[in-house]
């Protein structure tokens, strides 16, 4: 467990999430992809903190990432519900079409 291996794992998680976020059509699945990317970020940030500068302020960044995730999810769910109610759309490109 050295910084490089932690970052490798984080990069793998981030890339898998990126693939999901780019390729999935369903809004909720895109959100899962984003979550996975943030998951990688958490791991990378934790690794940086521990191996580079284990002073207290670094951890705050992690908490901010986690908070960002929850906000993203909550708003994502709300938007998905609203979209579903209005147009029965749950696919990203349907949502894009609706804006025209």
């Amino acid at each position, binding site marked *: *467990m050295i*910084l490089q*291996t*932690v*970052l*490798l*794992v*984080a*990069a*793998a*998680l*981030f*890339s*898998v*999430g*990126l*693939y*999901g976020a*780019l*390729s*999935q*059509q*369903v809004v*909720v*699945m895109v*959100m*899962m*992809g984003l*979550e*996975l990317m943030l*998951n990688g970020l*958490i*791991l990378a940030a*934790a*690794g940086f903190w*521990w*191996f*580079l*500068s*284990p*002073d*207290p*302020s670094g*951890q*705050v960044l*992690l*908490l901010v990432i*986690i*908070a960002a*995730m*929850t*906000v993203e999810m*909550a*708003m994502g*769910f*709300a*938007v998905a*519900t609203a979209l579903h109610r209005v147009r029965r759309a*749950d696919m990203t*490109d349907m949502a894009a079409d609706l804006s025209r």
Partner: protein
Amino acid sequence: MITHVAFWILAIGAALTGAAVFIVNSMARASYALAVSFICVGLQVLLLQQNYVGVVTILMMVMEMAVMAVYMVMFMGMNPALMPMSMVHDKRHALAVSIGVFLLLAAGALLTPWPARRGTPPADVTAALGEELMEPKMLVMAAVGVVMAATIVAGVVLAAHRTRYDRFGDDLRRRPARDPQPGGVGR
């Protein structure tokens, strides 16, 4: 030694379950695969001595994925919960981009001459985090708190279907409210 073994097991677990999210056919399995991936990362963060952040990651993400599974089942119209699905577009490009990004990040991780460790970890990491949040980084805490509260309100407003006028009538005087099913405190 045991930390290294644990780290690698968790690392492989996190990556595999992360990939499983986009491979499995069932919505329930996809969301709980993501939950397992988060649990693995949370435990890895525990291994990196950041106990609070690690445990909070597990806590938040299991809850989120429980809700996620419900949304999946609710909104995935034609029920891919049971159907083998292939709801992707531009699969090839997405794959190329993400592999490229991975190579880039991996190269960066391996080739960058990372500086030596500055400073030493505080004796009580969690207490240090708490003090940091409540003293120098108070602004972060305050901002996060406000954003969270705003999220709750905004989320409910966005997702809610009925307004208070539906419940209490146009003059907001109807008591008890007209609900499809009455709630517990009888408003």
